[in-house]
């Protein structure tokens, strides 16, 4: 079966999973795309290197990356894109084979297939963990930048109208407020990239 055909099948299957988990209607197609891409990576690596575990690991990484990307562009929680895509990778087949082996009282086969199932599950967690923790680190860094920006905005505001004499406590409060605004900008509006970051303080000045 060609890779393209499998991509289409995986796309449809992932959309089905997305419906099962009741994702918002407007994100269905993107969830499907993330899942299909993850499955294609799994499929290709599995064929080339003949290792289910490595293939699952890389697929989970790709899935996490694209999920984070979509989460930022679509302003939706990350889970919406990831969960439907993860399900096809979950070792359902391996678990089923383990169960069959146990039923047939073939315990050595059960241990073999069962450990494969556990390894696949670990590979999914590993792949997700690596991408997510790197992303969490980057976000923290961006947040620190946002905080610094918030303080700068506040200082500029104070310079603009000198008549305003805020006591330090109130000033702190305003900084907190600006920080929150900046936080939400970071979390959900990353598309503009640098350009937006430049614009944001200017808008504040105009006010």
């Amino acid at each position, binding site marked *: 079966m060609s890779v393209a055909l499998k991509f289409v099948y995986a796309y449809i299957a992932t959309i089905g999973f997305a419906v099962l988990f009741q994702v918002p209607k407007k994100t269905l197609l993107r969830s499907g795309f993330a899942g299909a891409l993850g*499955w294609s990576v799994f499929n290709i690596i599995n064929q080339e290197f003949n290792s289910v575990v490595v293939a699952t690991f890389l697929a989970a990484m790709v899935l996490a990356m694209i999920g984070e990307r979509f989460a930022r562009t679509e302003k939706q929680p990350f889970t919406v894109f990831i969960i439907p895509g993860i399900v096809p990778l979950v070792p359902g087949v391996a678990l089923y084979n383990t169960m*069959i082996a146990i039923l047939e009282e073939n315990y050595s086969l059960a241990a073999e297939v069962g450990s494969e199932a556990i390894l696949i599950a670990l590979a999914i967690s590993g792949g997700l963990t690596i991408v997510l923790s790197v992303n969490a680190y980057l976000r923290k860094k961006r947040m620190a930048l946002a905080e610094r920006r918030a303080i700068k905005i506040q200082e500029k505001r104070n310079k603009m109208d000198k008549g305003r004499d805020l006591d330090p406590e109130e000033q702190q409060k305003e900084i907190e407020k600006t920080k929150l605004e900046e936080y939400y900008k970071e979390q959900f509006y990353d598309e503009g990239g640098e350009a937006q970051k430049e614009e944001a303080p200017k808008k504040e000045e105009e006010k």
Partner: protein
Amino acid sequence: MEEITRKKMLVLALFAGEIMLKNGGETYRVEDTITRLCKSRGFKYVESIVTPTGIYISVDHPDEAGKEGPMHSFIKRIKNRQINLEKVAKVNDFSRRFVQEGLTLQEGMKNLKEIEKSPPPFTKYQVAFFGGVTSSFFILLLGANFLEFLSAFAATIFVTYTITILAEKDFASFTIHLVGGALAAALAILLGQLHPEISINRVIIGEIMVMVPGVAVTNGVRDSIAGDLISGMARAGEALIVAIAIAFGVGFVLNLWTFFGGGL
């Protein structure tokens, strides 16, 4: 802030967290939302612990005169959980609006109630149909033939519909998946008798894919990364129990079948 406003604000934050947690939100997201909602309305000290079975919040805030106010704690027990990611997304969006646009408490509460009452984006018939689509296309990926494709499609519609109905009636997750697994195996055996080309194993694999605890697995991983070890372990346990329930249901029926002389 007045005492009554403070209380209302807390209830609002708790309610937002409850909706998220009940519908499959991750623990860290719930904690984050609660903390941000409270801080945006001037609570100085907010601490929240969220586990899959409950939410605990504690806040402290000095009043206008600078006098220390009383400390408030709220606990909410979460009993039944379902999966509706749209509600998680909606509450996420709500919290952003509440913080940025400064909605009043009444407006906020009204919005949250609307979110809670809003019907899921897909009806149970649609969910059942897509369950069929999903499992049939999934086994196509595993190299199934056309007959298996059709039987998985038909059988999974039944299985998905049954587990949706059972979930609506608030059965325990173990029971739901046990019945689902047993039904899946029974239907696959039945369909397997129709034509020799239909492999029972493959049809069962397709059917049980719709019951696989994907949300529990993914959220468990995320929670563990974020350092919420209790939630992470709880979700991993949930996933394990569901997997055991499915295996138990399928295994029971298959065992009966081979006992009475059928072949796999």
